[in-house]
């Protein structure tokens, strides 16, 4: 375990990079996922079709392929940014499909009478969705959404391979391959680093889940 102590600086900065990556991605994916969920229940057919296509593509395509397109196709389109940005956006877009589905099934869990009542007092689509349905849906959205975000934290390890660099997983591979440190302790250190993030996140999620749980 000396490797862990000797390289604690690298590990800590790896954890920090991973956390930043996940924080930006998390915020972005919640926004995008909500918008796409809105598309999927919207009255406009092209938007619905776009939403469905979006979810189909990002749910069924490996993250490796999505990240590749971020890092190598966007620059061809003339969109240049740092690889950290590409990785963050790629991770967010991939996750947004799952966020969207969590939100959509949450919307579906609100009894139809709520929407009917909202409409009968004259609320339009955006008002019905934004003021009546979504606030109620939040309770049933939170548990699956939490799982999606925890999965995203773990998936962030893959972004490191696409030029993001310096995240926890890449720190581990660098220590073990380029610097020839013993692979077993290095990888245990990496796994521990992720567990430090994911296990408390899971506990927090369980707590929130119990808080918002309602008998229906």
């Amino acid at each position, binding site marked *: 375990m000396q490797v862990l102590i000797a390289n604690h600086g690298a590990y800590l900065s790896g954890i920090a990079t991973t956390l930043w990556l996940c924080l930006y991605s998390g915020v972005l994916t919640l926004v995008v996922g909500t918008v796409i969920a809105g598309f999927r229940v919207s009255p406009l057919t092209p938007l619905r079709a776009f939403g469905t296509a979006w979810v189909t593509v990002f749910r069924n395509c490996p993250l490796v392929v999505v990240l590749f397109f971020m890092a190598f196709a966007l620059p061809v*389109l003339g969109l240049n940014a740092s690889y950290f940005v590409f990785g963050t956006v790629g991770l967010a877009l991939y996750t947004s499909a799952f966020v969207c589905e*969590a939100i959509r099934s949450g919307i579906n869990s609100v009894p139809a009478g709520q929407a009917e009542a909202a*409409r009968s007092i004259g609320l339009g689509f955006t008002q019905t969705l934004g003021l009546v349905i979504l606030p109620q849906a939040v309770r049933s959205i939170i548990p699956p959404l939490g799982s999606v975000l925890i999965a995203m934290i773990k998936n962030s390890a893959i972004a490191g391979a696409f030029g993001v660099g310096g995240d926890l997983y890449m720190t581990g591979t660098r220590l073990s391959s380029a610097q020839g440190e013993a692979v077993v302790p290095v990888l245990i250190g990496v796994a521990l680093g992720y567990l430090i993030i994911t296990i408390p996140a899971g506990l927090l999620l369980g707590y929130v889940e119990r808080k918002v749980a309602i008998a229906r």
Partner: protein
Amino acid sequence: MTGSVLYEAPGPRARRRARHASVVTALLLLGALGWVIHRFAAEGELAYEKWGALIDPTNENFGPLWTLLGGGLANTLLAAGWAILLSLVIGTVLALTRITAAAWYRWAVVGVIELLRGTPVVVLIFFSAQALPALGLNVSLMWALVIGLTAYNCVIIAEIVRAGITALPLGQSEAAYAVGMRRHRVLLHVLLPQAFRAMLPALISQLVVVLKDTSLGVTISYAEFVQRGEIAIENLDNQIQVYLALGVVFILINYTLSRIAVHTERILSRGRSAAREPESAAATGD
């Protein structure tokens, strides 16, 4: 609740407005698509030499390229097949252990499940490729990938199985105990078969996850679909085109699997209003 509950059945004016809005959105989306194609064309990404080997059967490289990619896809499916099979077996055992475990060692089972669940699958794959040999256990690259995938997915399947069992009506096990069955027989002969039925859709969805994660085999140079794609790219210098093809194939296969899952679900829940759906891990991008 379907989308249509969220808004009034539109009147003639609203329909006209919606139609206009639809046309405008469609044009905007098409415009964006057109811009992307235009940019790609301007950068030479639509050139024949970039596409020929992929889509033109008369191209000299078409045969070799797809033989190479096909071999990779076969390896991908092979690894995914083993991984899902082993995950299913080990996951079921884990779930039963967790349910039947005495309190003094249940924490250990739960601990293993939580540790494996909280670690990224790519780390587990890398670990089984690098650390197992260091520990004196030599495995081929395929088995390293399968072991990594299994370690990750068996705990997810264990949770699916557990959810499937706990979702069964209590009367089932009570009735079984009442006719004098022992606990392991209740589990094996009464609860598991019913749970599996209810879990089938979730299990098929998990197959999609495994198939996608198989692409991480590229990080350990296992000759799977993406890795073969990389070799093709070194020869043909058409990264974007090959990756597009890889993505399309993955989406087609996984979309088909998802449809099968939905279809199975429909068949299974036909006439059974009480059928409860265990939470699908596939829905989290796990």
